[in-house]
């Protein structure tokens, strides 16, 4: 039919299709952009009961993984409790010894929402090197390993704005090396270095 002297044809139809697709694309982009703000509104509304501040991403606490410096003396390691480091190097692992290692998480208390703390441990140590995770941590599948390790959940949620230190990630703060770790008749046994990595994650609680 005619409209304003023009026949309604393929040109006008193509324009309408394009307009629909543009509209749909804009809606999709707006939805993606609104994701953090909507979540923030949701969290803050549940927490405070009112919306009295402009919407923004809820602040999470700074989680810092630390441990004390390991000192080698004559083949035995001890911890220097006066020095905090973000990693040690163990160059002399001997059979029949305990290696002191005390990783812990420092939380600065800047989290605006309650969080759960997760620890991931990755190691390729041989069977002759053993450790036990602290009793405050339990294996969990709530968070997928990010580094190929095993994830453990801390038993206590971290309340909002709570500064605290979470220690005893390893029971007894020790790795135990068996007296069969090496074999002089088989020099190649456990001759290669191995890794022991720890990671920490905070996950906001709904």
């Amino acid at each position: 039919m005619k409209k304003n002297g023009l026949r309604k044809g393929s040109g006008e139809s193509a324009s309408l299709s394009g307009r629909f697709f543009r509209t749909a694309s804009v809606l999709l982009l707006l939805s993606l952009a609104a994701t953090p703000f909507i979540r923030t509104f949701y969290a803050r509304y549940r927490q405070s009961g009112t919306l009295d501040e402009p919407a923004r991403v809820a602040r999470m606490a700074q989680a810092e993984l630390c441990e004390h410096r390991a000192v080698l003396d004559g083949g035995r390691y001890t911890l220097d409790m006066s020095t905090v480091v973000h990693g040690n190097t163990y160059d002399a692992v001997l059979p029949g010894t305990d290696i002191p290692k005390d990783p812990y998480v420092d939380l600065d208390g800047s989290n605006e929402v309650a969080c759960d703390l997760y620890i991931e441990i990755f190691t390729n140590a041989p069977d002759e090197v053993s450790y036990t995770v602290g009793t405050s941590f339990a294996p969990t599948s709530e968070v997928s390993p990010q580094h190929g390790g095993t994830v453990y959940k801390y038993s206590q949620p971290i309340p909002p704005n709570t500064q605290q230190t979470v220690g005893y990630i390893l029971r007894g703060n020790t790795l135990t090396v068996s007296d069969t770790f090496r074999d002089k008749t088989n020099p190649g046994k456990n001759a290669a270095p191995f890794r022991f990595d720890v990671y920490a994650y905070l996950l906001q609680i709904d």
Partner: protein
Amino acid sequence: MPRKRMRTVALAVSVLVCLIVLAAAVYARYIKGSNPLEETFTPSPYGSPSVEEELLTDTDGFRYKTNVAVRADDTGYAVYARLALVLTWRDGSGRVYGEQPYPGYDYQLEYNTADWRYNSADGYYYCTSPVGSGSLSPAFIGDGQKLKQLRAGPAGYTLHAEIAAQTIQAVGTTDAGTPPLPAYYHAWGFDFSN
């Protein structure tokens, strides 16, 4: 009609995707990671100790060893050391005579009894204190002491004194046992600390 249906379908899919994203946004949770604690553990190497000594000639023409001590390998850990003395009569070709030299008759040994203990069960001399990595043990034969030939041997044979050293980690215990045994005791079967 097909075009109109296509537009309707496109709009419905867009709305559906938007709803899914919004739902995910409501239930998505923020996760934050810490700095990593990534460490490498290196097994200690086996050490190869060496014996340091002086070989001198006495006024009577017989030779003697003095200032004998064990040098621990530079492995990063302290060790306990023990020595074995192997004394033989040998000819110029290295052939060993059928009889052993006798202590006090063919040769004399003066050694540092304050720091070294003799175990008659296995014939070794044990240093009673740990030797630091790369360090020298207390002298087994000190300055002024001698491992010395006293008389001539069989014709064509001379006295040979070889000192062989072994070391073992000074720290560490067995997994089992009440109490667990020190590494040196478990390996050598001699508690020289008593």
